[in-house]
């Protein structure tokens, strides 16, 4: 445990896009100088424009630039940076890089490498959490030898249960079983499906969490053993395991469950001697049970909604903890005030099966007004490169209560203009109108199947007449300016007549 004060005067941000911009803002508020790094694709990126220094680190593909630990470390040393902030993604959960940073005598703005390692492996983290008294999804990871063994394990775990292929994934060899009389046929079906899909008929049993929600707890720890939580975020609205919308508080979490879940999250952080900001993810069942999923040992994409309801700047908190400052507030000082929602704006086209939509953004206008925040690296004239993640902005809105936050989000979406590329903005307006979203009763399956199609069809009416008129004006002025067109002979419209109208 590094229990001494160490000033940070210059931070290298080993990331790009909106999160690099977010970190730069935190640094500048604390009077810390900033160094950006960028690839061939990002010379024009906003993080490069905002940072005080910027250094090129390689070609566009991440593997040759933002994942080049050696090159980034070199730049940090050349520029005299005394710390590295990894953002999220890229090198942020790479314990080897965290160690290399420390060995180079620099401060790693993140948890100790051992904590990253401990939480990095699903099986190890599960075992360590179980040992620390953190609830994990009950079941065996061992293959079941016989039906009799399956029957016994299912009885211990309690119905409903899920049979899963040991070698598998993607839903193959999986069966939900709600009572013992279904078990025999499900067991043989799962085994034969596992055998034909993966060449291995081994299956195991896990407790089935019915209509689970994804609820996570933000924790913050200093280097002196103090751990606090900053309440939960509900991230159940996902598309293909990608979070799309997050909100806090979780609209259906009873106070006593919140208390239990946040206490468990702090225990999880303590069990791995965590330092800095981290997130403990849980599956929260419709029956009120919750189970540890994993811990993200970094700043989370959706951290702004926590900032909105607690008033704590998590990036500045990371920096102050990294400088060796003991926590400057206690758990009792923290309150959840109001409600916050984050909508992730992806450069994807919901009308074309969410096809990626990178490219130049000639026009861009962010929404404004009270309690509306946009974290992005976009500007008019920016370009969304094809090489990186399609998430280009986060619209974060605070309201006095959930309904207020939803109404304000819809208003902000109306104002939000992104030109040149397609985004998920119109999709969100349909989502905010959905009665199940409005009621707060949804699970991680919310966007599966029918609803996705329904929402995509409900994004609003197209306006072919206005579109035709706009296109005509554009073509007309373009052709006139180019001098490529002259009036057509025989046209019934006399131009002089029009000019006197």
């Amino acid at each position, binding site marked *: 445990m590094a229990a001494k004060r160490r000033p940070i005067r210059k931070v290298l941000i080993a990331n790009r896009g909106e999160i690099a911009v977010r970190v730069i803002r935190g640094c500048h508020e604390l009077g810390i100088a900033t160094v950006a790094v960028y690839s061939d694709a990002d010379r024009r990126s906003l993080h490069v424009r905002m940072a005080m220094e910027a250094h090129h680190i390689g070609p566009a593909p991440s593997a040759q630039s933002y994942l080049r630990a050696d090159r980034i470390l070199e730049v940090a040393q050349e520029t005299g940076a005394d710390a590295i902030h990894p953002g999220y993604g890229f090198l942020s959960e790479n314990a080897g890089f965290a160690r290399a940073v420390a060995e180079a005598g620099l401060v790693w703005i993140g948890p100790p490498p051992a904590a990253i390692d401990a939480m990095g492996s699903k099986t190890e983290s599960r075992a360590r959490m179980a040992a620390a008294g953190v609830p994990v999804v009950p079941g065996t990871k061992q293959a079941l030898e016989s039906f009799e063994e399956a029957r016994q394990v299912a009885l211990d775990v309690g119905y409903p249960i899920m049979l899963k292929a040991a070698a598998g994934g993607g839903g193959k060899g999986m069966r939900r079983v709600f009572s013992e009389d279904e078990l025999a046929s499900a067991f043989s079906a799962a085994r034969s499906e596992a055998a034909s899909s993966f060449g291995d008929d081994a299956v195991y049993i896990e407790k089935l969490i019915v209509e689970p929600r994804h609820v996570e707890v933000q924790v913050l720890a200093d280097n002196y053993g103090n751990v606090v939580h900053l309440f939960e975020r509900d991230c159940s609205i996902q598309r293909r395991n990608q979070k799309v919308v997050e909100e806090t508080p979780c609209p259906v979490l009873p106070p006593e469950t919140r208390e239990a879940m946040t206490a468990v999250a702090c225990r999880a952080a303590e069990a791995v001697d965590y330092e800095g900001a981290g997130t403990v993810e849980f599956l929260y069942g419709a029956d009120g049970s919750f189970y540890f999923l994993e811990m993200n040992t970094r700043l989370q994409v959706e951290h702004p909604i926590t900032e909105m309801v607690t008033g704590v700047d998590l990036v500045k908190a990371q920096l102050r903890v990294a400088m060796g400052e003991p926590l400057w507030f206690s758990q009792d000082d923290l309150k959840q005030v109001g409600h916050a929602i984050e909508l992730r704006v992806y450069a994807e086209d919901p009308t074309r099966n969410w096809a*990626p939509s990178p490219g130049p953004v000639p026009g861009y206008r962010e929404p404004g007004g009270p309690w509306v925040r946009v974290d992005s690296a976009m500007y008019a004239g920016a370009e969304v490169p094809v090489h990186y993640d399609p998430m280009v902005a986060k619209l974060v809105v605070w309201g006095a209560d959930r309904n207020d936050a939803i109404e304000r989000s819809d208003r902000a979406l109306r104002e939000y203009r992104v030109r040149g590329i397609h985004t998920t903005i119109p999709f969100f307006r349909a989502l905010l109108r959905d009665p199940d979203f409005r009621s707060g009763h949804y699970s991680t399956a919310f966007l599966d199947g029918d609803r996705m199609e329904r929402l995509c069809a409900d994004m609003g009416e197209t*306006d072919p007449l206005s579109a035709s008129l706009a296109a*005509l*004006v554009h073509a007309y002025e373009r052709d006139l300016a180019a001098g490529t067109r002259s009036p057509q002979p025989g046209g019934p419209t006399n131009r002089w007549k029009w000019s006197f109208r």
Partner: protein
Amino acid sequence: MSTSAPTLTYEVTVGDGTTRTARIVRTARNDDGVAHYHVELLAEDGSVDTTVELDTIRPEPGVLNLMYGGKSIEAGIVPFDEGVDVDIRGLSHEVAVVDPRRKALRTGGAAGGGSVKTQMPGRVVRVLVSEGDTVEKGSALVVVEAMKMENEIKSPRDGVVSRVSVAEGDLVEARAVLVELE
């Protein structure tokens, strides 16, 4: 201050909709950037079906604000080839605007007839067909990767591949032709 300008004729198609003939003339342009247009949309028999008096400004790059019939419409404008992608309230409208005389010059009006295009720019990671292959509607032709995701470009109809225009590893722009079908 008014400036007189010529009337031009275009053929306009929104998405997969029907093609209509339209006449447009700028009737006024003021020093403050406000421009007025008179637009006539023709019916199939050539008679004027709809007339619109348009009041427009260009408040910022890539944006046209239209007023007509008491409505105010913000339209995002992204030109491509002989068309414009128009964004209204976040919804995209792909509008082909073609000079009828130039169209007549083009061979067989091959406006995308046999060509399969990619909607997004990216990198070609796999080419799944070669010349002479018979393909069915919906079968995957080419896989294009963009933003860490692979996207299968599927055949819009049954046919025979007459030409493969890309190779694995190629970088392609939006609307680039990948494959030609017979």
